[in-house]
């Protein structure tokens, strides 16, 4: 039976020659991930079930990133549960304040995930690692607990949607515009339970940061995973970084797909998702009447170096519009350091922005930029549900770093043009 790329990775990890969509399998895991919100629940379940040991202390990653440096006493207690567990089980990939970053920027950066891996994470955006050619999917805390104990997880083998990318992105558009365009086309449950397999001659022109951003939001179309083929860009990224050798899988030529969606990258325009669903997409230029109170540039979707550079190129030697709060959050300490070294942080501060250490904070309405009633924010984050960033009557517009930075200068949603 011909298989998709995802199916090949799952078959290999289940010890089977082939799998078909709908088949229930048990697969070996290369990495099991959790954070300061989801790991405490997993740890509680792990201990309640009286498991003595984790399956492999080097294959578990616990990253404190949602509410750190801790926002309040309760959050501090959650971090303490993670810290104690990591210490007592000698978890090698434990990332506390000072070392941490937003998990989905950190794991690829540190080479903890690689091509051919089978990964679960107790965070819905775990699908990000499909960018390096891994099968990677979000699960809940109980699945994380089971994964930590056994090194395995059950999956229903997904069918797939083929996303054929052609052409080349125009200047001032990026991965975020591509994924918002796709979600706008297929809807928030357009890929429910399915894989989104990206392919086509347009792939080669996409940077790793673009691919990470695209796979990151596969879940926003309901997908089980998003995945890119492994090419020279992937291998160059993994070289001298990945702690395990990449294993390259590719879809069979005659693999079956439920449907094919075609996107010509040269036709992708700066795109914004309007409240309160990521599928409510509009070209940025049609939203110039929307006045904004806040801008957030960061998150597991767009807090990487290319995103920071895009924001810098627009904000340097300019002033953020009076009355607009602009919050910039590099996603990892390494990115933060590079932003300091390159003078980005100085430029951001001179422009009137604030720069924070890595945190998921505002993206999920945790802290560091909560919105009051009726306020509007343009953010490079991934969700714009009711109450996502604060008061239930506040509104979040999702966009690229270019669109967010340009909007910070005008106070209205603005398509960036040089």
């Amino acid at each position, binding site marked *: 039976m011909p298989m998709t790329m995802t199916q090949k990775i799952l078959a290999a990890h289940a010890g089977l020659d082939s799998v078909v969509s709908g088949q229930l399998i048990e697969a070996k895991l290369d990495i099991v991930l959790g954070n300061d919100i989801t790991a405490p*629940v997993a740890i509680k379940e792990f201990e309640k079930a009286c498991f003595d040991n984790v399956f492999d202390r080097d294959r578990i990653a616990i990253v404190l990133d949602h509410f750190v440096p801790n926002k309040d006493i*309760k959050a501090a207690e959650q971090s303490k549960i993670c810290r104690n567990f990591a210490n007592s089980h000698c978890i090698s990939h434990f990332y506390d304040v000072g070392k941490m970053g937003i998990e989905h920027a950190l794991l690829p950066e540190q080479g903890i995930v690689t091509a051919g891996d089978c990964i679960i994470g107790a965070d819905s955006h775990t699908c990000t690692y499909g960018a390096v050619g891994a099968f990677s999917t979000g699960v*809940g805390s109980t699945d994380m607990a089971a994964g930590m104990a056994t090194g395995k997880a059950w999956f229903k083998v997904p069918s797939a949607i083929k996303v054929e990318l052609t052409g080349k992105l125009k200047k001032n558009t990026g991965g975020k515009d591509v994924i918002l365009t796709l979600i706008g086309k297929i809807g928030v449950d357009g890929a429910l339970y399915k894989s989104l397999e990206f392919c086509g001659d347009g792939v080669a022109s996409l940077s790793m940061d673009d691919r990470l951003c695209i796979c990151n939001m596969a879940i926003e179309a309901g997908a089980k995973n998003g995945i890119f083929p492994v090419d020279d860009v992937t291998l160059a990224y993994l070289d001298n970084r990945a702690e395990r050798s990449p294993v390259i899988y590719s879809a069979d030529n005659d693999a079956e797909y439920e449907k094919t969606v075609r996107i010509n990258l040269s036709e992708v325009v700066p795109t914004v998702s309007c409240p309160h669903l990521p599928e409510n997409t509009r070209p940025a230029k049609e939203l110039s009447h929307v006045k904004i109170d806040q801008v957030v540039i960061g998150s597991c979707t767009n807090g990487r170096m290319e995103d920071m550079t895009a924001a810098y190129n627009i904000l340097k030697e300019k002033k953020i519009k009076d009355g607009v709060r602009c919050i910039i959050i590099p996603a990892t300490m390494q990115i933060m350091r590079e932003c300091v070294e390159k003078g980005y942080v100085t430029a951001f501060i001179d422009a009137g922005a604030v720069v924070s250490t890595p945190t998921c904070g505002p993206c999920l309405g945790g802290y560091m930029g909560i919105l009051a009633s009726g306020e509007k924010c343009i953010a490079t984050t991934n969700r714009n549900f*009711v*109450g996502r960033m604060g008061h*239930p009557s506040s509104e979040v517009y999702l966009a690229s770093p270019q669109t967010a930075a340009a909007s910070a200068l005008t106070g209205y949603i603005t398509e960036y043009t040089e």
Partner: protein
Amino acid sequence: MHTEGKVFKYYDNVDTDVIIPARYLNTSNAKELAEHCMEDIDSDFVKSVNKGDIIVAGHNFGCGSSREHAPIAIMACGVGCVIAKSFARIFYRNAINIGLPILECSDAADEICAGHSVNVNFDTGLITDLTTGKTYSAPPFPKFIQNIISSGGLLAAIKNEGDKKDE
């Protein structure tokens, strides 16, 4: 196994941010989470929900974040079952893994109204709208999933499996 109670009805794409807003995720205590369940879209829910009551919703229930706090909060409110046209996949896994009964049934989700009294039999998948007298049939879970449910959750099922191998 069955549940019986009154229906709370919601729309498509009920996301985990409205089931339990992230501002309350600084705790994993089920009772504390339950106090804020659904508050951003239905501030009366927590005040009026009783043990055994049933949530009926449209497509893609539980979309968004992977927070297991969402089914935990629903279960801790006393909700006996969620019926929807479809579930987001992580919510589906989480509900099964912690033992919150969920059923996919489009006709029931379309026709059953808020406030109706409904009985759900989990063994047969039979949903009875006691207000109208109409019955609906939800497809049964695959055996593998039935085993997780009957064991009392994923970890208990894994433990059972391990015990069997040891014998």
